[in-house]
């Protein structure tokens, strides 16, 4: 599965399971926020990615994130 900021690009090159990240230079943790907040966001989105691996899909799918 792919974690990407540029979801349209990931789609156009054929990724099937996609989870959005927050930016290009720091996909999984905004340096303007605290270390704890960064880890929380990273832990959440990686968790979504792991759940995506166990999810049956019929077409290219972008999984929703909460933070």
């Amino acid at each position, binding site marked *: 599965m792919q974690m*990407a900021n540029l979801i349209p690009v*990931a789609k156009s090159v054929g990724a*099937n399971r996609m989870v959005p990240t927050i930016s290009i*230079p720091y996909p999984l*943790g905004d*340096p303007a926020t605290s270390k704890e907040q*960064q880890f929380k966001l990273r832990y959440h989105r990686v968790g979504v990615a792991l759940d995506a691996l166990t999810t049956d899909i019929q077409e290219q799918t972008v999984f929703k994130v909460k933070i």
Partner: protein
Amino acid sequence: MKKAILYLNQFFGQIGGEELADHAPEIREGLVGPAMELQKQLGDDVQVTHTIICGDNFMGSRTQEALDTILSFLEDKEFDIFFAGPAFRAGRYGSACGNICKTVKEKFNVPVITSMNDENPGVEMFKKEMYIFKGGASAAAMRKDVAAMAKFGLKILNSEELKSADEEGYYGRGVRSQIWMESPVPATDRVIDMLLKKVQGQPFKSELPIPPSDLIPIAPAIGLGDLSKLHIAVVTSGGIVPVGNPDRIQSASATKWGKYHIADKYDLIGGEYQTIHAGFDPAAANADPDVIVPLDALRAYEKEGKIGGIHPYFYSTVGTGTTQAEAARMGREIAAELLAAGIKAAILVST
């Protein structure tokens, strides 16, 4: 005087038909069969010095032996360019032309040119690695197909400006090259024109065509109870490497990837790891490489038992300016390693 060598199968090499398809490779001085037409089309400045002939079955079933033999023929020959075929719609011949062109290019670093019909399976197998001209379905197209190969060969040998795959007549290799547009309209205006056409639903032509994607089938979901038994691999195009970049992965237009041992790491520390990606500001990732390779989050899930473990290596390359052809090759190589290690699930983080 520049020199060329041509590869033919047993049929066009005038050895014989299917019954002689096991014919071992041989090299002859001078011109055999289509080599005469090639010589004619190349003109007086290029001499076709030798013709190599090999049976299609010999090349198909004893490929390495055939390639090694032909390389040994070529070792003491001087040549500036190598041609094979045209192979038309003949599948084994197309595959043979692709194999020999690829090998000759790797070994001698000369331009290689062949020609195949679009139905020839050799096109899909080799188009990304060499110039394959769009050829006819049968030998009736011989003159035309040889002429196309010769014309392009002369352009390369004379260092003339090469145009895009479409304009030249070969199958796109997925290679990008920068060109000066003749257009009097500046790029900023052209892109806005395109955007306006796009929002109005009108046709427009991109200046950066993306080769049609070969979509891969959707992998079946991992069973819910199985994730806790699996080891997860992390792959990234974000250029995270140990400080010093031991594999010298390029910062843009990468052709190399690296793998780095993390079995004893809980997270990736700034100062030990860095990004060498030239396509974005590296400050955040250098300060905390986990923002690209989220090892600390995966370790947390490993501890909780949500996943069985983490593959002892992460894989990394740089995704800026990298052609789809190179990216696909690196992807295949990394996937092959992961599969060999029994890995069934991976997270690819791109930047």
